[in-house]
């Protein structure tokens, strides 16, 4: 008997542009329940980082508490990681980001971790437009503590516990839009074709990028009466157009049918291509996004895909005009500018 993953990989898989093979982006073998949506999200993160040619050691994974918050152990095993306290991932991410703005910050949380105990922190990290990807693996329950309803459980949804939820659900995307996120998307763990490009775009976005990923809990909330089950999500999903991210350095090789796609050029010159779907939505308009989310909610549908992005996003560092590089690069002269500088500061208060 054995329960370990072989080190063999498909012999003809090619490495990415940096020369890393996919294994460099994988983590430990998952200990989650077999079939948990969170594992698919992890696989999507591996795929996205591999495809986006991100250096594993440039990533810091930060999480709170929950099955979802455990998942960073199962991907990007060669990256930095901090499994923090329940609902406190944003503070840790903020601190880290302040100290070293050159890293890529990947916050992983759950609906419990974010919408209940961490709701306050979540609001403020949105407001600050901290440069990070904040990804929620949303299963509409507290999986780790055996499936209690969470604050994203829809009214009337019945999990394995057997009781309909009476309380209004928090829509995390709507909240993020309201609180100031500059990139907002929703996706489904069972749709990697959509999720992988979203993660790639979000990692590239200069500011606070939020992705709410519906990620079923097979063990406690995959009942026929739950609105967060595999079947329910599949049956009720409506998607905005597919997206494609073209990094600035790269030539655009795909042919886009005129009129079929909408281009959003980012600060660094990268282009996000948005293929127009059936959904009436302007992704650069917050009001349009809020409306689309609401409209679908009323129709009983789950709107997925890129919902909003602000191409003019200015992240926290820009807003507060902080030091340009990582703090660890500051030498003694920069940290102790001397009597003259102090005199000048004092003079400015007189």
């Amino acid at each position, binding site marked *: 008997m054995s329960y370990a993953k072989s*080190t*063999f990989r498909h012999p003809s898989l090619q490495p990415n542009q940096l020369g890393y093979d996919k294994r460099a982006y994988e983590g430990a073998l998952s200990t989650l329940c*077999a*079939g*948990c949506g969170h594992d698919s999200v992890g696989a999507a993160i591996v795929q996205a980082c591999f495809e986006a040619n991100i250096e594993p050691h440039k990533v810091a994974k930060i999480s709170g508490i929950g099955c979802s918050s455990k998942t960073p152990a199962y991907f990007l095993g060669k990256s930095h990681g901090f499994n923090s306290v329940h609902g406190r991932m944003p503070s840790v991410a903020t601190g880290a980001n302040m100290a070293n703005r050159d890293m890529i910050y990947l916050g992983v949380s759950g609906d419990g971790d974010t919408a209940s105990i961490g709701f306050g922190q979540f609001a403020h990290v949105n407001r600050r437009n901290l440069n990070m990807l904040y990804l929620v693996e949303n299963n509409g329950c507290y999986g780790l503590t055996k499936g209690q309803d969470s604050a994203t459980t829809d009214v009337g949804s019945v999990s394995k516990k057997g009781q309909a939820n009476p309380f209004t659900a928090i829509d995390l995307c709507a909240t993020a839009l309201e609180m100031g996120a500059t990139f907002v998307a929703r996706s489904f763990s*069972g749709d990697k074709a959509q999720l992988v490009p979203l993660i790639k775009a979000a990692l590239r976005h200069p500011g606070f990028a939020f992705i709410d990923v519906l990620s079923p809990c097979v063990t406690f909330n995959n009942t026929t009466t739950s609105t967060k089950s*595999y079947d329910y999500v599949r049956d009720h999903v409506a998607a905005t157009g597919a997206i494609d991210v073209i990094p600035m350095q790269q030539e655009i090789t795909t042919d886009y049918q005129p009129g079929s796609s909408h281009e959003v050029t980012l600060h660094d010159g990268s282009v996000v291509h948005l293929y127009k779907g059936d959904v009436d939505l302007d992704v650069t308009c917050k009001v349009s996004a809020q409306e689309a989310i609401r409209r679908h909610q009323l129709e009983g549908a789950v709107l997925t895909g890129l919902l909003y992005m602000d191409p003019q996003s200015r992240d926290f560092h820009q807003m507060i005009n902080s030091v340009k590089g990582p703090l660890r690069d500051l030498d003694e002269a920069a940290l102790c500018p001397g009597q003259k500088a102090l005199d000048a500061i004092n003079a400015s208060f007189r």
Partner: protein
Amino acid sequence: MRPSDIAHPEHFHKVVDCQYACPAHTPVPQYIRLIAQQRYSEAYLLNWESNVFPGVLGRTCDRPCEPACRRGRVEEQPVAICRLKRVAADFKDDIKAQLPTIPEQKNGKKVALVGAGPAALTVARDLAPLGYQLDIYDAQPKAGGFMRSQIPSFRLPEAVLDEEVGYILDMGPVTHFNHYVDSLQSLLAQDYDAIFVGSGAPRGRDLPNLPGRQQADADIHIGIDWLANVAFEHTTSIGEKVIVLGGGNTAMDCCRTARRLGGKDVKVLVRSPFDEMKASAWEKEDALHEDIPIIDNHVPTEFVLENGKLVGMRFDKVEAHYDSSGKRTLQPTGEQAFYPCDQVLVAIGQENAFPWIERDLGIEFDQWETPVVDATSFQSTLPRVFFGGDAAFGPKNVITAVAHGHQAAISIDLFCQGESVLQRPAPRTNLISQKMNIHDWTYDNGVAADLRFAVPLADKEQALNDRRLEVELGFDLATAYQEAERCLNCDVQTVFDAANCIECDACADVCPTSCINFTADGDEDDLRGRLNAPSSNRDQVLYIADGLKTGRIMAKDENVCLHCGLCAERCPTGAWDMQQFNYQVTKSAELLAVPLVPKQQRVG
């Protein structure tokens, strides 16, 4: 694509690459597991049922299984399947008691076998337990055919051959050794219900028209005749300088034997480029290891004599050219070469010869003077005469002769019982789940990256001084265990049940070699072009299942599946299950008391 018909016996059989490639379809992974469990006798018997000569084949088999082995696609080298077979033979206990008993009461049918090579001996073994009365005729003094007369004892010790031939002779066939059958007609005139011709491909090709051939006759030998003379000790020495012509395994045996009989400067000269020689890679290695140069791209043009005595050979040098379809021609470079020698061994191929079969008996012969034989039943155009082994379709190897023997035995039995030889018994197959418990499997599925172990060799000096000293020493048990653990257990199949699948992607995500896909249906070209991992090996099937809720299909490329079981391990609903697939070629008789196809048991 059409969903896979997994109930078809050949569907999963193809996934067990080694077994599928083996002409006798030996259940390789099953015996390798038995070796890992130190159950050598059972491993031996499993082999014996399939291939009759495990000890012989464990040393000399052409091993078509090894190039097919999945391990060779995942990393560089296949499992040492052949040498593990030898381990079973070397370390078994006395298994005589477990061999089939032969009924005292005969069934009243009488069969003559011409030749006592592996093909005919297999027929005898498969028919004797049914009560057939068997007469074996061979021109040689002992049974074994080319296994005895051609394969040198430094590769196959006589004791090993005697033991396995003995198991069959002990079943009571009447043997007529030193008895060359010079007329099939006279045999047909006797009271035989059927005749099996397993006379091999006994004639070695010559170079009759090369200048000097006649004059130097005393110093030129046909390779296979010479090897037989060595085996039966009619020849005990050779000159110091020897040229061996040819690039097949016979040439390799000739040159290595020549080294042992006194040849100091032994060379092989071959027409084709080294990489395209017919000899197996390991046979070439063995020759090189014994300091025998192999000189390729040389076409012989003349035997050179001085004062009526052979002094060397002349060659044209050639170069291989390939046309757009890959067809090779050897074009002279204009250069010539001369190599001195005392004697020449001609090992440039063999052919069938049936001077003893009259052409008016109703046995049809084709334009190459080989009999017309049905490829499934091995029946000739004279219904009671059957052919098998090299005699049927030209020179092949021992395992092919054995595979023919099994099928011929079935035909002979059907024929003698008055049934149609076209009604062949289907192979026996079954599938048995291997999940014991959560995280608990009946087989060891931790696939580690271990490289193939080399077989130790006898000391070269000693080996070259004694043509009987076996060169390969075989694995010791510790090494055998480690080598056995390299087997991926390809017979433990990933069996998918779409009705249970919730499409959570757990299997696709965990699969180390990215075999599993959930995707939109398409034709094979289209699908292969867009799977998670490159899917260019078309010899390996796509396992397709439909019936998923989303209307997508499950497409699994079997090519580099490690059979690690992680897909089944991570599947929340048991839609994937690891099931041992047993495939047994049905024989004319039930040969073993122990059923080949086991119940689920804790192993490993």
